[in-house]
Every structure is written in structure tokens, then in C-alpha cells.
């Protein structure tokens, strides 16, 4: 029983990390119809910027604020200077190429700046050590990650469902042109949303760093998992990203525990099974 509870908590940690990454990816896709292949690179950049901030200031909390802001600024610049020219129904290939190029440049920049050594990020001091819950010793940092992820999910839900800006975003997902017709500057909404999505990727990079460490190549691992989550959950919905993350996080963890050799296979088997039953994902709306 104790082992089961520990694994359940492990699964929730992975789920919450995946959710933070996938939420950004999904929001950008839903609103702008752009598959952001640089999302993993933004994750990694967020982690490395956080590392430097922590080394300079010695405080995790500063990194948690600065790194997403800095990466969001980069996202904003990329949207305004490049991506903006490539919106449209038949320009997916150009968008994908652009974002793939951005991913390559960002990862090369990371290697030039921080080197290709593996960097480990210590847990924030306040959250180090263990607590005992349900008879199980569990690292405090991981436990707080679960709480942080749930809180972020709730805040995002509030933002999308309960604010005016959220309503504009939701309307934009359904029909961006119509929103423009109502006198709303869609371009600004797009730019803000892209920056916000990259900030989420970077935020995941910061909080995920003490668990996954930082090293070249992590960007594509993260990107693939996030894509799987988004596909399972249904493209473009926050709810989909949340439940998709839970499915993948738990499947991954229990798969690793039970059948470590086949855990990777199990992950994609789950994806295939979900898509067989619901081809548009758990909460997908855009039928194909």
C-alpha cells in the first residue's frame, strides 16, 4: 500500500510538470493554430536562465519570477518579428519550419552559453527534506510541486473561464476573424498569448529543473511528452491538457514501476488507445 501511494504521488508530480508545459503548448495551438516546436527549447532555456539567476542571487524565488519573464520577452519578440507574418490556413509548414529553426538556435545558444555539461539544480532550501504522509516518507519539494500544479491549473481555469481576456481568448479559439470583427485587436491578443505560452514553458523549466536536471537533449524529451499530452487531451483546450497530463503522468509512472522495459511502449500504447476511441482526443472539439 505504501508503495502504491508513493507511486501515485510520483505520478502526480510528473502529471503536474507535464501540465504546465502542455498548457502553454495547447493554448498557443488553440488560439493561433501554431504548433510551437520551440516549446521544449523554451522549457530548457527557462531552466538555464533560472540556474544563472539562482547562482547570482542564491534564491529560487527570484528565478521563479525572472526566468519566465525573460523567456516570455523572447517569445514576444519572435512572435512580433517572425511568426506574425506566417499566420494563415495553409502556412503550417512555414510555421513549423520557423519554430523548428528557433528551437535549433535556442538550444545552440544554450550550449554556447552554459556548455553541454549536465547541470543539477538543488531543491529550494525551504522545500528540502521529507515529510511523512499516509505512512510514507516523501520529498517536500515534490509534494509542493503537486500543490503548485493544481493551483496553477485553477488559476488558469479562472483566467480562461472567468475573465474578459479569457473570453476573448476562448472566442479567438473558435473564430479569430470574428473576434477581430468585433473591434478587438487580435494581433495583440495573439502576441500576448504567445508570450504567455512561452512563459509557461519556462516556468515548467524552472520548477522541473530540480527533478529532471538540465542537459542538452532534454528539450526534445519534454516537447515529445507535451505533444503526446496535447494530442491525448484534445488540441487547444486547457481541460484537455490537464486530463491528458494526468493520464500520461500516471501511465508513465505505473508503467515504469511495473514494467520498466516497456514503459516507453506503454506510454504510446495509451496514446493509441485513447485516439482509437476518441480520435480528436479526450476533450477535442475540432472534428476532422
Amino acid at each position, binding site marked *: 500500500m505504501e508503495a502504491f501511494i508513493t507511486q501515485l504521488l510520483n505520478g502526480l508530480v510528473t502529471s503536474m510538470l507535464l501540465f504546465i508545459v502542455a498548457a502553454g503548448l495547447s493554448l498557443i495551438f488553440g488560439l493561433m493554430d501554431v504548433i510551437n516546436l520551440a516549446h521544449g527549447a523554451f522549457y530548457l532555456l527557462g531552466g538555464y536562465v533560472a540556474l544563472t539567476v539562482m547562482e547570482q542571487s542564491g534564491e529560487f524565488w527570484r528565478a521563479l519570477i525572472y526566468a519566465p519573464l525573460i523567456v516570455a520577452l523572447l517569445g514576444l519578440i519572435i512572435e512580433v518579428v517572425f511568426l506574425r507574418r506566417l499566420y494563415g490556413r495553409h502556412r503550417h509548414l512555414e510555421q513549423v519550419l520557423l519554430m523548428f529553426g528557433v528551437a535549433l538556435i535556442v538550444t545552440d545558444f544554450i550550449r554556447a552559453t552554459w556548455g*553541454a555539461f549536465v547541470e543539477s539544480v538543488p531543491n529550494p532550501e525551504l522545500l528540502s527534506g521529507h515529510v511523512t504522509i499516509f505512512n510514507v516518507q516523501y520529498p517536500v519539494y515534490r509534494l509542493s510541486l503537486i500543490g503548485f500544479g493544481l493551483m496553477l491549473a485553477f488559476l488558469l481555469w479562472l483566467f480562461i473561464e472567468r475573465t474578459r481576456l479569457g473570453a476573448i481568448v476562448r472566442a479567438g479559439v473558435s473564430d479569430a476573424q470574428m473576434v477581430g470583427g468585433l473591434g478587438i485587436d487580435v494581433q495583440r491578443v495573439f502576441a500576448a498569448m504567445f508570450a504567455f505560452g512561452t512563459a509557461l514553458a519556462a516556468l515548467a523549466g524552472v520548477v522541473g529543473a530540480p527533478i*529532471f536536471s538540465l542537459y542538452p537533449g*532534454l528539450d526534445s524529451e519534454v516537447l515529445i511528452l507535451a505533444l503526446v499530452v496535447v494530442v491525448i487531451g484534445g488540441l487547444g483546450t486547457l481541460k484537455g491538457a490537464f486530463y491528458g497530463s494526468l493520464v500520461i503522468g500516471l501511465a*508513465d*509512472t505505473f508503467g*515504469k514501476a511495473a514494467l520498466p522495459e516497456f514503459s*516507453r511502449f506503454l506510454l504510446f500504447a495509451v496514446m493509441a488507445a485513447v485516439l482509437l476511441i476518441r480520435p480528436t482526443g479526450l476533450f477535442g472539439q475540432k472534428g476532422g
Partner: protein
Amino acid sequence: MTVKTKARLTRRQFLKAAGLTAGATAASPLLSACGPAAPAGPVKIGVLLPYSAVYAELGNSIEKGMRMYLEEKNSEAGGRKIELITEDEGATPDEATPKAKKLVEQDEVDLVTGIVSSGVLGALRDYFDQNKKLLICSNAGANQLSRQAKTPYIWRTSFTNWQPNWPVGPWAAENVGKRVFVSVPDYAAGHNMRDAFLNSFQAAGGEAVGLQLTPFPNIGDPAPYITEIANAEADFLYCFYSGGQAVTFLKAYGDFGLAGQLPLLSAGFMVEEDVLPAHGDYALGVRSGLHWALYLDNPENKTFSPTYQAKYDRTPDVFAVQGYDTGRVIVEMLNQTQGDTNVDKMIDVLGGISFASPRGPFTLDTATQNPKHHIYLRDVQTVDGAPHNVVLADLGEVVDPGDDSKG
């Protein structure tokens, strides 16, 4: 319109091809005329090492070590200058194969050295074998290349995966415990290391209470594995992870409170100097087998380590030592052939090359085309304020058996 363009392109391609062929035919008699009799010009060595992706720092270390030795010898051997042409191995055979072909066919190098990934080595084995081109491998440790898949054209200055693990088995059974949990990544090198350790550990009366093969190369969050390990009631944990996997794995091992509770033994790469700074204190007390240690006490290492440190401003690691030894093997080989790069002559003199290396006595074994060297049982301790490897015991000279009889 289209037809016309197509025709013109074809003609241009034809002319280009014709020109190349003519040029090559014209040049080849000239080249062979001034070939073996009076070797002129530099010896061209293709260096195929990863400068991107996961293994980039390993590639950097190996190249720096090799250049350091060559510079000590003024980049000269057998009366000829040595010229290095570097290419990026990347992380996969798909990336490395075209680069190897470019070095051999376009740059016409005399020999190739490098190769970090065992996957790449396996994929390129037939290419070097069929083209009768010499490859001096400076890292990839796949056992098969010294066993079933041996070819006269591939020699190694590094190790076989079997070597650092096999002598640790009996030592662990005697000094640590009889019940082990083994966790390794699910690919050729992981299997090699597990088999080697378990072979001698079980022969010494030990038993495996748990075995875990984890996905490679993406381990993700290792917490589920750590949870399984913690519940297995083993005396100790035996692992082989390297690079990013090593760091995330050891971090989870520490975060879940196993450091200091469940002793960890490993193949030395898991706690080698390249990853130790990232491990921090969780690495303290991890014991491992490897053919070198930063604080290995011999005159060569006492010169090598500080010189490397001062020259490149980075801590040497086992990969730098392998690069350094590779430089030395190449120089001694060319000295013996007097600069002749005929492949049969080079192969002839490689077996038996022997010298005092920073790793201790080094001899290229003719039977396995791989070094005979000592394996040291090392312990991570705080030295000069940071975790480093010190030697607990010299486990003696270790030679790959040349077949799978011992794991």
C-alpha cells in the same frame, strides 16, 4: 520550359561528374607515385567525436586530451606532421555515418579516431572492415568489438564495458553485501555492464534481489524506479548511468533519502569527474570501478592532471585520459612504421604498444585489440572542498576475456 531546365541541369551535372572523374584519374597515379617510398606531407587523421547533443562534453574532453599529447610531441610522429580533421559524431548512427564517409572518402584521411557512442561504433564496424580503413576508437566500449564482431581494422584505446564492472563483483560481495538490486538503462552498454558485474558477483556468492532495465535514452523522472528500489530490501544498489541520466537518477536517489542508507556502487562513468559537480553531495560515498581516478597516485597522472587543468581550465576526466592515450598510441604507432600509413603496417605494430599512462600501466592487447589496464575501486570523497574520486583499492590488471564466458 520544364523539360529544357531539366535537360540543362542534367548536362551540367554530367559535366561536373565527368570533370571529377577525370581529375581523380589524373591525380591518383601521382598520389601513388609519391606514396609509401617517401612519405611526404602530413599524416591526416580524421577525428570523429560528438560536439553536439548529449555527449558533447565527452567529445571535448577526448579531443583536448589528444591535442595535449600531440602538442607535447610538436604534432610530429615518424618524421611527419600530424594534421587533425574534426567532424561531429552527433548522437546517432544516422548523424555519424555520413561524417565518417566524408572523412574517409572526401578528406582521404589515413586513419580515423574517436567514436563515443557504442551504437555509432556498431553501425560503422562494417564500413571500416570492408574499406580496410583503420579506426582507433577512443571511447565506445561495446564488448562485441573485442569479441564476436572483432575486425583487424578497429582497435580501441578506451575499454570494454565488461572491464570496469567484472572485478567489482567479488569486492562488493566481500565488503558491501550479498543482496544487490541492479538498475541499468535498457541498451547494449547497460546490458554489458550488468552481465559483467552479476557474473563475478554471483560467482562470489552474491544474489540479485531485483533487476531493473530503464528506458534509454530518455529516463524521464526516475522516482518510480527509486521507489521500487527502496522497497526491495537489498544490501546495496548497483547501477550504470552516465551523463544526464546519471545526474537525474542520483538526484532522485538522494531526494528520496537513500543516500547514506542504501549504499550505491556503479560503473565509474556514473560518478566520473564530468558529472560530479552536478551531483553535489549526493555522490559522496558512491563507490565505483574504473580504469582511472583523479587522485590516482602515479607519476604520469601527477603530471597529466595538473597540466590539463592549467591548460584548459577544466578538471580532467577519464575521457581526457583516453584522448591523451589515443594521441600517444597514434604517435608510437607512426614512429614504429616510420611515418608509413599503409594500413597493414599500422595494424602490425599496434598490438603490444605499451607505456606508462596516467591510468597506470597500459598495453594494447593483440588478442582483443583493446587495452590491458588496471581497474581501481574508487570512492567519492570531499577533497579540496569538492567531491572527487579517490582510490580505495587497486583491483589489478583486467583484460577482456575475448568471449562471453565471463559475462
